């Protein structure tokens, strides 16, 4: 290797070689993503069923959300997905500086997403637009029957998604720590790839959440 780093990754003893380990890791990660899809899927199924039962609460509820903030978060996540891919690309081309830069941008985007989320949440909480029995908004628009259910879905879906963004931030920080130590190069970048896949899934779910919550009325 042409770099100054002395780090070399050794595959675990039960694998034939590094290639074998990469294959197994990615296979396992895709299985994990499959479980994530089914877990979020439960919420999407609930959403679809209630959307069919009470379409009016989703029309009324989505009016309380600011689509501009939702769109901003969509753009932020899309850019962060791009930078993760570029981090892998930089590792493949042995450009360690850009691995780090890309990971830092990703982390910043994730933090930005959470800040926007925080602004949205605090606004909702302030107005009493809360799930189920804690709903205390008294404006004229709240006359729609069962409107609190919309906010149940809003908070459960964005909450579960937000917790995944936080988990992603922890994982990306771990990548940055390892990247600083010079662990990633063309021969070994499996962690970047796996965390990247997880991050794309978080992005993918938001791609569906954004229109479902903010736009479809």
């Amino acid at each position, binding site marked *: 290797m042409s770099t100054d780093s002395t780090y070399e990754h050794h595959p675990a003893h039960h694998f034939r070689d590094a*290639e074998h380990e*990469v*294959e197994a890791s*990615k*296979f396992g990660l*895709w*299985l994990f*993503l*499959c*479980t994530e*899809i*089914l877990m979020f*899927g*439960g919420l*999407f*199924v609930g959403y*679809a*069923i209630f*959307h*069919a*039962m009470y379409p009016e609460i989703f029309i009324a509820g989505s009016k309380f959300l600011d*689509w501009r903030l939702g*769109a901003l978060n*969509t*753009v932020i996540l*899309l*850019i962060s*997905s*791009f930078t*993760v*891919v*570029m981090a892998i*690309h930089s590792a*493949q*081309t042995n450009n360690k500086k850009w691995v780090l830069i890309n990971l830092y941008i990703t982390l910043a985007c994730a933090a930005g997403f959470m800040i926007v989320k925080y602004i949205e949440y605090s606004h909702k909480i302030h107005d009493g637009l809360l799930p189920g029995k804690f709903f205390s908004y008294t404006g004229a628009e709240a006359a729609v029957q069962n409107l609190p259910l919309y906010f149940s879905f809003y908070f459960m879906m964005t909450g579960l998604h937000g917790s995944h963004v936080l988990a992603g931030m922890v994982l990306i920080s771990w990548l940055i720590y390892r990247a600083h130590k010079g662990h990633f190069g063309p021969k070994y970048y499996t962690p970047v790839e796996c965390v*990247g*896949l997880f991050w*794309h*899934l978080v*992005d*993918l779910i938001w*791609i*569906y959440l*954004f*229109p*479902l919550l903010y*736009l*479809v*009325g």
Partner: protein
Amino acid sequence: MGAHHIIPAKTFLNVLIALLFLTFVTVWVAQFDFGVMNAFIAMAVASIKGALVLMYFMHLKYDDKSYLVIFFTGIFFLFVFFFFSQLDIVTRIFEGNTL
């Protein structure tokens, strides 16, 4: 095996631009009321975006096809879950069940 196939950075940039453009489209289209078609249009655009993320960012287009099988197995059983639950709810209303 395409595991170590390096995809040019330009491809990813194009995908990002397409995704941003589609985000614009979905917001723009939401201004118009197509009635029941609203949800379908929004979901169609989201699915195109999702497909781009899956194929390029998540490498499904280049990687081992078993990952594709895993992904679609998940989606299929999610659909089964949705279909039978919805079947009950819809026919319950149809039968005039009080629940």
